[in-house]
């Protein structure tokens, strides 16, 4: 697996506090402010922009996401290559990714905001975001109630663990990043031509 250049062993003998250390909280606040600011400026706190994407009428969401993926991917892999950052891969569990993704999408279509953009919507004065947030908290609790069962069943279907695409394909990671970046950029050009907004 990947070497973890910045990982430190957890301090021994101290119980894990339910509040993180101040430096971590300060950067969390600063980055969160920037994230919310950018998302609102990008229009993705707006109900009609988000729903417009699901209706295939407004492609703002796809443009924001694909651009973020290209820029983020090139930078994060470059930093990782030089040992400056750790990767944070969530396990690939095909069954859970599939069913969870579909369920999530259905909920997204009903609410019209997703978990990040609902926070932006609230800040922007779209008060209906509150209904969704209450639902998100309730749903999180229900999942916790079901978590013992889901861990024994759905989460075991097609569990590949923490893998990267380059582990599954016979292509070196750098090449793969280059190919995917080019494909995504071409995709953006096509998208812009077909859907100016």
């Amino acid at each position, binding site marked *: 697996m990947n070497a973890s250049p910045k990982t430190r062993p957890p301090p021994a003998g101290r119980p894990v*506090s*339910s*509040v993180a250390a101040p430096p971590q909280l300060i950067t969390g606040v600063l*980055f*969160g*402010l920037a994230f*919310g*600011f950018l*998302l*609102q*400026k*990008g*229009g993705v706190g*707006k109900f*009609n*922009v988000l729903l417009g994407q*699901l*209706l295939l009428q*407004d492609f703002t969401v796809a443009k*924001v*996401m694909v*651009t*973020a*993926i290209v*820029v*983020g991917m090139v*930078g*994060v*892999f470059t930093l990782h290559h030089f040992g*400056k950052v750790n*990767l944070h891969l*969530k396990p690939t*569990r095909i069954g859970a*990714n599939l*069913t969870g993704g579909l369920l999530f*999408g259905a*909920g*997204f*279509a009903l609410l019209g905001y*997703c*978990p*990040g953009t609902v926070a*932006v*919507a609230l*800040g*922007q*004065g*779209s008060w*209906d975001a509150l209904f*969704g947030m209450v*639902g998100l908290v309730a*749903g*999180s609790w229900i999942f*916790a109630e079901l*978590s013992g069962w889901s*861990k024994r069943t759905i989460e075991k279907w097609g569990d*590949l663990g923490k893998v*990267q*695409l*380059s582990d599954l394909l016979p292509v070196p990671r750098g090449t793969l990043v280059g190919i995917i970046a080019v494909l995504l950029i071409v995709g953006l050009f096509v998208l812009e031509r077909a859907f100016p907004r």
Partner: protein
Amino acid sequence: MKVLLTGLALLPLSAAVAAEPGVNALDYSGPAWSPYVVGAGIGVLSWLTFYLSDKPIGASSFYAHLAGFIGKRIAPRRTKSLTYFKDKPPRVGWGFVFVVATIVGGAIAALTGGEFTNEWLPPMWEARFGDGIALRASIGFVGGLLMALGARLAGGCTSGHGISGTLQLNPGSWIAVICLFIGGIGVAMPLYLR
């Protein structure tokens, strides 16, 4: 539960009553900034969160921590017994304050940009389903609930999988985000277009 089911049943009915035969999202206000500028900004933000905080951007776990905190208040023993909270004890960590700050960041952007809406119903929703607040509340609640179930099952949301996971070329994230859009399109289309 009954209220929610009634709400779901009322959706097609309200749409049938509302004047417009299907809505066009482009009739409403769009983004203030170019999506490419915003996307690139979020990409760069990812570099910084990885480099300075050793964290990927994500949003949905915030609601799980919040559920855990509320659960600890109401039913502490039950909360401690649940597998999910054993694996991930509720915590005010980086990701938690990140989402709280996202609300404030959104507010600053909207207020400085003259886009503060101060409304209970999105105009596009109103055009399709009428001005009943109870319908919006129940459907919004159900939507949030399903999203949380889906996000916890899949291991992330539009941010955690859709941006942070995909940019690390995590196969599971690509599966999750593609299924997210399939599920979303599959539900949104019949609801809003006739």
